[in-house]
């Protein structure tokens, strides 16, 4: 599905609901899914890497390397396939701001 089609779908939904719904998930909505593995606030209590407090550039670099396959991973390469550049940048900024 193209981004264009996704946006059109969201618009149709808003019209059907009779009220405007925010289009596209917020960075918080995406980041909460990161925390399911990487721990609350990005602080991992176990074997998962902690992702809180890294610099924005560091996280962007890592996530893009996972997505391209340049950096080997068990699952992050697969997860990153659905992330656009602006998703990656927003998530990186979100966790960097939690230093």
């Amino acid at each position, binding site marked *: 599905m193209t981004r264009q089609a996704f946006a059109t779908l969201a618009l149709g939904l808003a019209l059907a609901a009779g009220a405007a719904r*925010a289009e596209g998930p917020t960075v918080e909505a995406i980041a909460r*899914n990161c925390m399911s593995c990487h721990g609350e606030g990005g602080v991992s209590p176990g074997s*998962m890497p902690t992702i809180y407090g890294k610099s924005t550039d560091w996280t962007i670099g890592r996530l893009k390397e996972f997505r391209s396959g340049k950096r080997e991973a068990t699952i992050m390469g697969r997860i990153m396939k659905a992330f656009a550049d602006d998703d990656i940048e927003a998530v990186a900024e979100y966790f960097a701001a939690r230093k």
Partner: protein
Amino acid sequence: MKTGFARREFLMAIGAAGAAVSLKGCARAAKPRVVVVGGGFGGASCAKYINRIDPGIDVVVVERNREYVTCPFSNNVIGGLRTLGSLTHGYEGLGARDGITVVIDTATAVDAQARTVSLAGGNRLAYDRLVLSPGIAIRWGALDGYDEAAAEAMPHAWKAGPQTLLLKRQLAAMEDGGTVVIAAPEYPYRCPPAPYERASMVAHYLKTNGKARSKIVILDAKDTIPKQALFEQGWGRFYEGMIEWVPRGQGGTATRVDPATKTVYAEAGEFKADVACIVPPQSAGGIAISAGAADEDGWCPIDPWTLESTLRPGVHVLGDSCIAGAMPKSGFSANSQAKVCAAAIVALLNDSQPPEPVFMNTCYSTIAPDYGISIYGAYRATEHAIVAVLGSVSLSPLDAPDEVRKAEFEYAQGWLASMTGEMFG
């Protein structure tokens, strides 16, 4: 192919959303209250995130047990890799948070008109929004002969706790050369890969306890299984000749059980077991059904944007009980749905629009120690359903080296630590 979660569109729309957000604080007269029934992956996570997003909301969690035992990793207990105690959590941490009260009691009735929940202890709780996350109920008798008494002879172990230990004791008592029968149902049921992880962990236990001549027969009401190639590869490597899978097309569907003789009757014939583990047909938890939130099939239809019941306004249903479209019934799914629901409830109680959901799920399975596999998917909401983000659903690669399987085994443990920390911390 669509990539990304369309944040650019969100940023363009934020001006309109800002007007609604500004209503916060003046639109509500009294402190609103959310009652959450069920303190598991869905309920505990939802309570925590409502509190995190808007600490001004009064959250009451109603949970019948003082301690929670996670179903994830209970197969590791059967395999001897973990203790049940390591999967057991109390509610002290959750209840200690300002704004969250944990009530150990059983919810017995919901009045969706009056917006109240009755408890077995006699109290009645009023709510502005209700979250039901009761997990599954077993449909006793739906498989001929399988009632509560039968489960004491042929454990389901599909709710972690005493049933897990019962199955473990039966395996310990079984002689080498015995037969273990696992009956797996048709979808939908809790944790699709779990019957096959269970077969793996039973095989591991038997192999490492001097019972390697034993057999495991999986009688299946399905013709394919999740992560099938990965399971078959792992079984060939670690448990050669021990596990036989009988799919639906070869008569694998169980039709009746006899607990007195531990016999499972299937279309393919009679299977006399030394240990029988029956994964029974299931439905939404009892409180979701008695609240009128379930359809004729016993599961709860929901609005995919808010997880609000389409049958009972003001009641949200999470986790195994809800019909979540493409999402599997898993602890991870329940946790992801809980976060979406929490954000939606906070918005609704602040006269704002629920934000667009994004859901994710990862299910790890253990085939052997240091040998883990996973399935991952991202999901989004259409008007009527939760659907997979195109191209996002993926499996561990079939040709992965041992160090990747070991890393997945270790990350699986890390996932549990992170998630239970989030739920109970």
